[in-house]
């Protein structure tokens, strides 16, 4: 079935080059898009220990911190939509106090993994703008994202 090579085969080489050029350009644009988006949207992803390890440097820098909820510290004031709790890496490590202006997730109990995005303020509190929790034992349960309420 190589009849294409007879009559029109002579143009095929340049067609191929042109086509590859087009595809390469498209791929490059997509790459650039990814690169730009990554630079704009990436945040540091740390554990509580690593955040503390950065010392004063960490203050005011956008970061995403993961840890486990300390159940006894959870305070939720629905009228202010204010959720306060502490999180830590494991039972021994130093806990990080977190304030989150937003909703309390359905599954918010002791020792469950939580990921918060926000900034550490000068008083040592982590002001979260986003909170993510996941049910640890039933992996199908999707994690839920909570966005901070616009500060009134």
């Amino acid at each position, binding site marked *: 079935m190589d009849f294409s090579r007879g009559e029109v085969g002579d143009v095929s080489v340049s067609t191929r080059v042109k086509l590859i050029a087009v595809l390469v350009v498209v791929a490059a644009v*997509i790459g650039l898009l990814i690169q730009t988006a990554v630079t704009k949207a990436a945040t540091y992803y740390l554990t509580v220990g690593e955040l503390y390890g950065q010392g004063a440097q960490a203050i005011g820098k956008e970061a995403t911190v993961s840890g486990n909820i300390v159940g006894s510290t959870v305070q939720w004031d*629905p009228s202010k939509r204010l959720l306060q709790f502490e999180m830590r890496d494991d039972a021994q490590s130093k806990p990080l106090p977190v304030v989150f202006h937003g909703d309390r997730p359905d599954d918010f109990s002791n020792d469950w993994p939580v990921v918060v995005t926000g900034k550490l303020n000068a008083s040592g509190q982590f002001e979260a703008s986003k909170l993510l929790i996941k049910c640890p034992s039933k992996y199908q349960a*999707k994690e839920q994202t909570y966005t901070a309420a616009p500060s009134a």
Partner: protein
Amino acid sequence: MLTGLIGQAAIRLLLVSVLAALAIHTLAACTGSRRWRTASRLAQGWVFLCAATASAALIRLLVTGDYTYPYVASYTGPGLPLVYRIAAFWGGNAGSLLFWSLVLTLYGAVVVGARHEDSERMLPIVSFVLSCITLFYALLLNLKANPFVRLDHPMPPSGLNPLLQNPGMTVHPVNLYLGYIGFAIPFAYAVAGLWLGRTDAVWLKVTRRWTLVSWLFLSIGIVYGAHWSYEELGWGGYWAWDPVENASLLPWLTATAFLHSAIVQEKRGLLKAWNVVLVSLTFLLTLFGTFLTRSGVLWSIHAFANAPLGVWFLSFLGVAAAVAAALIVWRWPALRANGRMEAVVSKESAFLLNNVLFLGSAFAVLWGTLFPVVSEALGGRRMMVDAPFYNTVNMPLAVCVLFLMGVGPLVAWRRASVQGVVRAVAVPLAVAALGGTATAAALEAVYHRWSLLGTLAVAAALFNLWTVAFEFVQGVRARMQMTGDGAWTCLVRLVSNQRRRYGGYLVHASVAVMAVGIAASGTCHLDAQVQLRPGESADIGAFHLTFTGMGVTPGTVSRDMYANLVVSSGGRTLGVLRPSATFYSDGQQPTTNVALYSRPMQDLYAVLLGTSPSQGDIAIFDLHVNPLVQWIWFGGYGLILGTLVSLWPERARRQAWSVTGVPSALEGLYQQMAELEYDWKMGKLDGDDYHRQKRALWTAARREEAVEAQLRARLERELQEAVRGARVGEG
């Protein structure tokens, strides 16, 4: 007790049987004897029986609630409805691995029933590959995650997570699994095709069909999962770009790319190697997705390679990737194209561009999902990306794909003139641009939100709908002229004679409808958090809500606390919304239940966040208005319908045009001619191109006819000689 023992025995037997089956398939493939091939088929059925017995045993344990089994105690509890007891089968890690084996062996037992050219040679190899995958899961079940582990004493039951107690959770995981696991079969065929050195039309036909089946299940699973997330999780959205969602999207993107590039191989004999790569990649991505959900690699980043299942999946992924790569390299010469790209502007190149866009999107999703791991490996600092990243990259790509979807059908095969394409596209594109702008303006007037990308997406979607309508109208009109039948008859005949083409167009239209829903709800989403005392009101969008008070539905296992919100719009009372929170007597965390007023044009979505009795019965609500969300679900149904039309078997009469069910070189040329006539009739080609291509195809067909005639003559001569020889011998 007995049930548990049977289950335990069944998964042990499953492991032994798979090992035996591997030996049988090997013998069947090497000896080629009919006996061993039959044995190979039976082995696939037997392995399925083992998995089915184990599954039945586990379901029985879950239904009867035997809490001496930790698996039963972890995922069920007293008072759990029967349907969720059954759903607990795939609700946990060990059970879902058994479910995985069940589905895989079921597919394995079904696939050996296939009859196609060369199926006798291919099926033992296909079965071998599927058995290798089953072996992996059987090993996991026996060594790492056995659901039949039993304790001496009952464990306190902890119940199924309330969030999973939703009808959607019985449908969504099953569909996802059916889709995910189904991609193993195209991969198995790819390996068989490469091994036998034939990745030709037979391979393509079977592979495309199985990919489409899996793709359908995966699509249903994804859309249903989004729907579940929207109705159950109460955050007002349907897609959060979390790693698990991404894991389901990745193979979907590559499979979609394959479904398109397969057409190029079928019609033009190009992209053979590329198709094998796509099929393998899709399968590898399903393994990768499973790895993500089981290993905890992205959740707690420290668990990388610590989680036992993670290492297993990663090793298996590595082995599968290495085997696929080695086979492709080994058979590279056989994967050479039969023809060439003739022009830059052609349907082939539109398909190529489609593939680049889909793979680009898949790469972006993969890159984002793995970014924590990648950035640590590259720069030492762990970084992550979330929804804004995925949206920034994927939305423009999606808009490009949508435009391409509209242009593609209007472009002719082989060589299309730029002017021709511009001419065909100009009017619909102008109309679509106007329609898009008008829609955006209308949305802006109501919701005061606007985005360029959203407008472009709506315009592209309208352009698509136009293209699809155009294809249908032109096709029906041409048929009416030819046959003189009525429009309705012609439409039915048109679709039933070219199911794949028109089923595909239906899918395109459905995707366009979904795109409108996604663009509108993404751009014009309104939300507000309000605190109301009884008697107070709030406004959101065009809705006026009055809080009239709280109520409680009593229950033994759980009770619901609900708020009454009277909804009105434009002075007309629409009804009462009752967002609620469920409290569980066993001390589980309370869950919220979304109240939804859902109409085709917009959804009003209300969540009860909490109450504050100390401050005078204040209730706090999260309110969302999402325009056109229902269009996404409508589009989902259309997508199912269109795929089913594509999949519906063609009548035997139509398959009979070739003895083998697969076109010979000459039949392939006749098909290309029919395609050319179609393009010409639909106005996709100008006169010069049409006549030139027709001439080229005729010349090639004559050449091929001459070759066939020669062959036939030789065959007849040799037959006659043989017959004469036999007569002489008899005499």
